[in-house]
């Protein structure tokens, strides 16, 4: 669950969005909508705890998992090493057994020892999103910034399913996306949230 209390996101000393007073209920998936350049990514980064330029408060019941535009992959390392480091940073267990399960689920097993720079963009994105396939990830809220970008169709569908099952387990998902998410938008737990720009009172 996430509560926003008079949250004002600031960029270059100007408020970016209108002040936000909102409670996001668990068990729902919220799609942050708005035109390009509105500040959706900045808002997500504020909620993830990365961007510090804001006034007001927000409070998480549990610490979220954040996957942004840049997934934090190191080009020189192999797929399995990158995955191991990603899981480690996010506080998720990364034993060999779990790594193998994830690699299998994301169809990366044959390329697990290749350096990431040799993979296609879609495969790299899969490594970045592999967090969400981890068993322990189901017990934390998700903050996803353009999760479906550069992702293959099949994995996209799987991701939509995962998000829906996440909501069914009473967890919160916040995401931005410019792509049409057919399965997801038809689900009962799907909501839209459209923040206003600061000068649009």
């Amino acid at each position, binding site marked *: 669950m996430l509560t926003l209390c008079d949250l004002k996101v600031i*960029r*270059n*000393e100007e408020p970016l969005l209108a002040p936000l007073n909102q409670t996001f209920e668990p068990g729902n998936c919220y799609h942050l909508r708005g035109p390009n350049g509105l500040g959706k990514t900045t808002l997500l980064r504020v909620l993830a705890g990365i961007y510090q*330029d804001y006034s007001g408060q927000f409070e998480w019941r549990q610490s979220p998992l954040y996957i942004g535009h840049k997934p934090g992959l190191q080009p020189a390392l192999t797929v399995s090493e990158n995955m191991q480091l990603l899981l480690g940073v996010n506080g998720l267990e990364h034993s060999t057994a779990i790594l193998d399960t994830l690699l299998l689920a994301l169809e990366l097993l044959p390329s697990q020892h290749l350096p990431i720079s040799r993979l296609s963009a879609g495969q790299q994105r899969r490594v970045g999103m592999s967090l969400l396939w981890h068993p322990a990830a189901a017990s934390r809220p998700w903050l996803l910034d353009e999760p479906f970008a550069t992702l293959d169709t099949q994995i996209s569908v799987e991701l939509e399913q995962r998000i829906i099952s996440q909501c069914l387990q009473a967890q919160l998902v916040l995401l931005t996306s410019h792509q049409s998410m057919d399965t997801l938008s038809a689900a009962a737990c799907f909501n839209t949230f459209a923040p206003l720009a600061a000068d649009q009172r």
Partner: protein
Amino acid sequence: MWQGFVKWFYQMASLPLFYTKIVPWMRGCGFAGASLLCVGLMWGLLFAPADYQQGDSFRIIYIHVPAASLAMSIYVLLALWGLIFLIWRIKLVDIFAQALAPLGATSCAIALITGALWGVPTWGAPFAADARILSMAFLLMLYIGLLLVRAQIKPLAKAQQLVSVIAIVGVLNVPIIKYSVEWFTTLHQGATFTLTEKPKMPPSMYLPLLCSVLGTYLCMFSWLFSQARRVCLMREADKRWVQAWLVQQLDSEHAATSQASQDPGVIQ
């Protein structure tokens, strides 16, 4: 009285008010500083008695010492303002830092150049490896780094914060650098040339120096305020109060050129 001070402080932090209210201070400091500086320089350069050993060439300290002390004080001020900005985010403080940094770098350079000019007749060479000269040279490099970051890093918020951090780290390193340079030169270079002034000088020598130093500091404040006003205008160029001020300026110029100006309360 405390309330008065707090009120004045908050007024100063508001930029449009700062712009107008600081003008009398700016002029006062400028006038007083310029006159003191003139007196000090004239007295020192022309009228003070010549030094027993160095003859007339020592007179350059009347420029060298104010410049050097200005360079060091300004760096400390920059670090202090950086700290205040990082903790309390007062915009005015960062405007001060941006306004004063070039003056600090220039006075550092002047101190080095005048030191070199002093060195030529005294030691026969522009630069002896004296601890103070080296420390001043490293201070100049710190200044240049600061100015470069301010110029090159683009989003203003990022540049402000980075400059503040760099100034703080620099100021903490300056004593270490000075100490290590002094220690090194005494260890390896033999006798250093002491360039001390006040205790050993008779009043006829150090009074003009005092005058110059005081005058320089007052001038520094005046310069700070005038440059801060300029930076203020530039940063707030798209705000309403600047537009209104511009309009008022143009109107008053127009009125003045058309002979009789009947507008008493013009913001200048």
